[in-house]
């Protein structure tokens, strides 16, 4: 029966090509890392399964694929291409983040800034490899080690690269435990790694209340293009700290961010449709992504050492590695290495502070690059 034939020629079995197989393996790898290794499962699991869904071969022009208008995936993907999901994720992040350690040690913020240098080194490298400026900027932001930020900037500057850049960003965030330690060990002496950080002073509620407003004004006056990320971020944080809208803060850090995370990860994964994804550019992006992460880590650590040249109260340069946000992976690594060098050396709290400033830092960089290139 030709109806049957026609149907069978539209099945995935018939339409399958080797690139789909590659992507299906990539997706499975992500799922393995998420479930067996528990590397950033909240990110890798949705993306990994999304990769599987996006790479089931299907007959084009049928309203199924994420790149076909009026497909369900396309509607869900809308939140990615418009940058709405990243903003919402930042709202939830703000409602989760505790800035007290940063408020207690403001100068740790400089490490968060320093780690962003990786972005600009990568920008130059990407240009040198022949990427167009907007593409180069989107690739460079991978060095910010911040998934939503990367996706947001790429959606604005180079939407055709959302898939590869998101995958690269999240892969390397999951591989933080493999990327960072060697660099940290290489660039620091045992003595430096042993430096203890002083205990944190208590931070008053009023300070915590003033911070979101101050942060918003200062950061967004400087780089207005970071409003879509930092606006919701500081808003969420004020909801958390104010204590007068707990029910809103609670919803923001549960239902809202979870929903955004699910659909962001799932659709970004599905956007890696083999024929769109597997391009020479993707290879370059992965290569540059690795550089971005390494340079970011390195510049954070080195800046920590430089600060020590000028300040009498030394800081532990390992903290520089936590400046590449990648919340909370890098902070954990820093803490681990601190403990290895000296079982009494607990760096988690100051490392979280660097993480927080790293998030702000890369959001600002996204704003800067966006306004440079639009």
């Amino acid at each position: 029966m030709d109806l049957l034939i026609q149907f069978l020629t539209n099945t995935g079995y018939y339409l399958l090509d080797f690139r789909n197989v590659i992507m299906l393996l990539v997706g499975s790898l992500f799922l393995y890392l998420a479930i067996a290794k528990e590397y950033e499962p909240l990110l890798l699991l949705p993306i990994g399964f999304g990769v599987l869904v996006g790479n089931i071969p299907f007959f084009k022009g049928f309203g199924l694929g994420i790149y076909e208008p009026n497909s369900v995936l396309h509607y869900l993907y809308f939140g990615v291409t418009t940058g709405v999901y990243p903003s919402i994720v930042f709202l939830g992040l703000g409602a989760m983040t505790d800035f007290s350690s940063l408020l207690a040690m403001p100068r740790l913020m400089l490490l968060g800034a320093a780690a962003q240098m990786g972005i600009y080194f990568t920008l130059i490298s990407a240009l040198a490899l022949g990427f167009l400026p907007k593409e180069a900027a989107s690739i460079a932001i991978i060095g910010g080690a911040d998934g939503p930020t990367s996706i947001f900037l790429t959606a604005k500057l180079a939407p055709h690269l959302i898939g590869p850049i998101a995958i690269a960003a999240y892969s390397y965030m999951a591989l933080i435990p493999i990327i960072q330690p060697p660099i940290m060990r290489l660039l620091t002496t045992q003595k430096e790694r042993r430096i203890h950080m002083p205990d944190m002073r208590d931070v008053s509620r009023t300070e915590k209340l003033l911070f979101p407003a101050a942060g918003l004004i200062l950061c967004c006056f400087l780089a207005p293009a970071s409003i879509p990320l930092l606006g919701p971020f500081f808003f969420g944080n004020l909801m958390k700290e104010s204590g007068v809208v707990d029910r809103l803060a609670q919803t923001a850090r549960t239902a809202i961010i979870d929903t955004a995370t699910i659909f962001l990860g799932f659709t970004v994964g599905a956007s890696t449709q083999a024929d769109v994804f597997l391009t020479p550019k993707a290879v370059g992006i992965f290569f540059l992504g690795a550089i971005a992460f390494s340079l970011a880590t390195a510049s954070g650590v080195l800046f920590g050492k430089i600060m020590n040249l000028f300040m009498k109260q030394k800081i532990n340069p390992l903290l520089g590695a936590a400046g590449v946000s990648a919340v909370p992976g890098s902070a954990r690594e820093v803490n681990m290495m601190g403990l290895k060098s000296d079982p009494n050396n607990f760096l988690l709290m100051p490392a979280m502070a660097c993480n927080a400033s790293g998030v702000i830092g890369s959001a600002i960089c996204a704003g800067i690059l966006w306004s440079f290139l639009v």
Partner: protein
Amino acid sequence: MYGLEAISAQNGWAMAVAGALIVMAGLTVLSLVISQLHKIAAFLEKGAEKRSAKRQAVKTVPKEAVVPKPPAFDIEEAQACLKPLVAELGESFELTNLYELANSGELPHVHLSIRSLRESGVIVPAGDGRFVWRD
């Protein structure tokens, strides 16, 4: 176009240097401001204390008015005041939530009321730390 040529053609050096400067500058300023926040905070808190002192004075009026009442009546009042709040909390609720809500509602001596309601069996445990309203 590749290599240094591409970089300068695309104005890459400028972008990199400018970008780096801007973000460093921005976060440095922010960290400086943060390091001064506690002073502003201290200043504001002083003001706040004064006001809250005043506010206390105001608040006491209704409180005093209600204190002398006999416990028997107290319960009716508590019910009258708390029922609508409970309604907002849904069928079953946690006492902490009720406290929050009631306090925000500026109702008189919340803890006393709620305790008396529990004693008089208006608020009864529904198991696993939640309670329901019976009347």
